[in-house]
């Protein structure tokens, strides 16, 4: 016995039963009819029975299954059952069923023999549903202000999303058409959804969907259709959704076409257009029982990274800096998924760039490809036409190639142009550990002319070159450290920067540590560069424990002193004045001040100055750090010859900011007339 024949038998029995009690159901007539089970494709009703007790009719269904979802103990109670000819009418009926369907007011008229009728279900406060079955095999369904929560009756997993809003739908099924066809138009107003943790939610959503489908050509009835060809178009015009951590405002359209068959859904072609971002085209095949993606391909040919970056990439990839990032350029992307394998993703960037406003750094524009075939490997090949910049430092364009294997990135040798030199990175590898990203490699700087570099750094134009060799570069969470040194050929000497470490380089607490040493720098070249007045001679420089926070010195122990050896040692009147301005009152005594009026320069035996900067105070000492004069002063320049002139400091502890402001003044528009 087939399901259809059983169904027919049930209907015939119902019609016979109805005919037997033609007219208003008499109060004295009590009857009960067990119909048994009915089966339709996707629908099953078990233990169906009808009773008439004291004029009240009740239809009971022990179990109703739509798809795989069962409802138990449904009952339709009709106090006003009217039987007229071969039709059955229920007025002021009441549906008893598990939530959310229960509590509905029911009215229906049904003529089993003619297979016509209409049904109206009204849920107080949750909308209504009206269905009409016409004699020509046309079923129309009209839903108004329907609470989407009612849909969880048919789609139980939807309950976890707590759907809300008001849904209007008009559906028309033409079962007599050849082939059978269905059309629907639905609109959701003020819709929303929310998971309990709030990580997936939508509010004030306005959506419209137009849907049509027709049975496969060979189908003569809805029941024997092997499959359905469908088309849909939808628009999301209002509201916003949050899919952690991405917030998306309204503005998207979806159009799709495909097939629905026994246990499968095929999306032959779909296009999703997101306002301001671009379009995504794709196709897919899904198994419905259980739900699984068998195959999926999607491709976006022209995405605007300025919008996509702000809305999606920044929250996903760099959430801590999401508000400080600007993206630009275009991208194309293709994703493929097959047979339960990890997805394969390919991205093409065109003139793409990213800028961190607070850190004043950026990369790009870049053009190239990123490929993740889905086997745990990946490859990146980019041409950074605009290179990169960090503050005033601008790097030229360069190609970059890298491979990904699991969570290890191997970067091919890089040569990043910097002025007339280049920063080179060799053997750079980055890998992820529990504590964060680690890295190792080698780096070097091909000699860069100092004039350009010093100008970019806002320093006086310096002659010379800068180069570096770092045989070991180490990257750890919050730290980049290098072994090796930067060598700067400047002032006819060599200055070396070693022990370089960048701590928390991308955070508000960023600082750097280094050691600096130089021998036999030409003081004449140095002082001329800084408009300080002229001091001829040579000096050795040591800066230990240098710490730069916000790229300003906050701690160091520095010492400058005359280099050993024979060389000309003269200090100009202007330089003495500058030192006086630096040291504050009392640096040059009254007798010596008078000498300044008559001589342009003075000989000196040696000079020495040290500063230990700690907590914003520079603790100073002179040529002999351990020696204290009776008057408490310390000699910075020890004079020689006639006239002999000593420059003596008396303020051993000077506020660092005050000292810097004095230095700015003396190297600015000329020394103030502090020493007359």
């Amino acid at each position, binding site marked *: 016995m087939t399901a259809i024949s059983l169904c027919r038998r049930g209907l015939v029995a119902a019609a016979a039963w109805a005919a037997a009690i033609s007219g208003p159901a008499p109060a004295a007539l009590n009857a009960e009819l067990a119909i048994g089970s009915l089966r339709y494709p996707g629908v099953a009703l078990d233990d169906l029975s009808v009773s008439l007790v004291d004029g009240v009719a009740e239809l009971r269904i022990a179990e109703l299954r739509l798809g795989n979802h069962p409802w138990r103990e449904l009952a339709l109670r009709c106090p006003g059952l009217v039987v007229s000819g071969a039709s059955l009418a229920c007025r002021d009926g009441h549906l008893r069923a598990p939530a959310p369907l229960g509590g509905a007011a029911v009215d229906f008229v049904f003529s089993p023999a003619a297979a016509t009728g209409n049904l109206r279900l009204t849920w107080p406060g949750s909308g209504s549903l009206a269905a009409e079955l016409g004699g020509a095999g046309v079923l129309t369904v009209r839903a108004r202000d329907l609470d989407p929560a009612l849909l969880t009756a048919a789609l139980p997993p939807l309950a976890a999303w707590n759907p809300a809003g008001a849904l209007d739908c008009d559906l028309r099924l033409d079962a007599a058409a050849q082939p059978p066809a269905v059309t629907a138009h639905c609109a959701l107003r003020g819709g929303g959804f929310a998971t309990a943790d709030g990580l997936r939610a939508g509010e004030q959503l306005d959506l419209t969907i137009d849907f049509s489908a027709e049975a496969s050509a060979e189908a003569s009835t809805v029941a024997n259709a092997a499959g359905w060809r469908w088309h849909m178009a939808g628009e999301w015009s209002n509201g916003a959704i949050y899919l952690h951590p991405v917030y998306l405002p309204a503005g998207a359209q979806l159009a799709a076409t495909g097939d629905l068959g026994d246990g499968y859904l095929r999306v032959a072609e779909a296009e999703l257009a997101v306002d301001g971002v671009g379009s995504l085209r794709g196709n897919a095949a899904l198994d419905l029982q259980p739900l699984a993606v068998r195959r999926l391909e999607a491709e976006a040919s022209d995405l605007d990274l300025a919008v996509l970056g702000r809305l999606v990439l920044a*929250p996903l990839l760099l959430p801590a800096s999401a508000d400080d990032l600007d993206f630009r350029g275009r991208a194309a992307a293709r994703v493929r998924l097959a047979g339960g394998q990890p997805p394969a993703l390919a991205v093409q960037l065109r003139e793409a760039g990213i800028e961190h406003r607070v850190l004043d750094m950026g990369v790009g524009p870049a053009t190239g490809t990123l490929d993740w075939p889905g086997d745990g490997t990946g490859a990146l090949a980019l041409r950074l036409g605009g290179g990169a910049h960090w503050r005033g430092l601008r790097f030229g364009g360069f190609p970059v190639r890298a491979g990904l294997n699991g969570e290890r990135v191997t970067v091919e040798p890089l040569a990043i142009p910097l002025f007339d030199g280049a920063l080179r990175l060799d053997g750079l590898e980055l890998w992820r550990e529990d504590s964060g990203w680690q890295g190792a490699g080698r780096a070097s700087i091909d000699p860069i002319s100092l004039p350009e570099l010093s100008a970019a750094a806002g320093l006086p134009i310096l002659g010379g070159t800068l180069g570096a060799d770092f045989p070991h570069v180490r990257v750890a969470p919050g730290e980049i450290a290098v072994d090796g040194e930067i060598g700067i050929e400047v002032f006819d000497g060599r200055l070396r920067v070693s022990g370089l470490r960048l701590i928390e380089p991308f955070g508000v607490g960023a600082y750097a540590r280094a050691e600096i040493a130089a021998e036999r720098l030409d003081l004449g070249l140095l002082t001329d560069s800084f408009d300080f007045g002229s001091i001829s001679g040579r000096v050795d420089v040591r800066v230990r424990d240098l710490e730069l926070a916000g790229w300003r010195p906050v701690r160091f122990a520095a010492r400058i002193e005359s280099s050993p050896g024979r060389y000309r040692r003269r200090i100009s009147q202007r330089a003495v004045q500058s030192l006086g301005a630096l040291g504050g009152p009392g640096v040059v005594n009254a007798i010596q001040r008078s000498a300044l009026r008559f001589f342009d320069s003075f000989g000196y035996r040696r000079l020495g100055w040290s500063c230990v900067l700690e907590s914003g105070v520079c603790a100073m000492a002179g040529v002999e750090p351990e020696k204290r004069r009776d008057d408490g002063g310390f000699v910075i320049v020890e004079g020689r010859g006639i006239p002999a002139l000593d420059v003596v400091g008396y303020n051993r502890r000077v506020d660092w900011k005050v000292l810097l402001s004095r230095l700015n003044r003396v190297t600015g528009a000329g020394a103030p007339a502090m020493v007359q």
Partner: protein
Amino acid sequence: MNRMRGFGFWLVLVLLSALTAGGAAAQAQADLEIDTPAIRALTAAMKARHDALEPHYRSGALGQAANGDLVLRDASQVPLPQRAKVNALVAAENADRAALYREIARANGHSEWQDEIRATFAERFIARAPAGWWVERAGGWERKK
């Protein structure tokens, strides 16, 4: 506004307490009171961020996790248009907290102490959280009474 100032004061109190108070193994070894420009910059950034986070502590959207991080534990308490912003604030706060734990360890000359320092801060953040705020303990999340 006075209430906001009160919570700003609370934050400073918690930070100072965490810096000065003992109780964990790290305290016996590390100087948690140590002061560096980076620590000052980080605590200043955290304090500046606190006013924006404070309403979400009170609503229960945010909670102090047992691992020393701040957690968006119930996003439904945050108005939808603000959720991405609050998530960004939480990420920034956790980045600064991680940097702070590292920097205190570094300033003590023992980078390897950062896990103990993090644990100490986690205990202090939880202990000093006002009534009504959510904290994570061994038994799970609970609202402080």
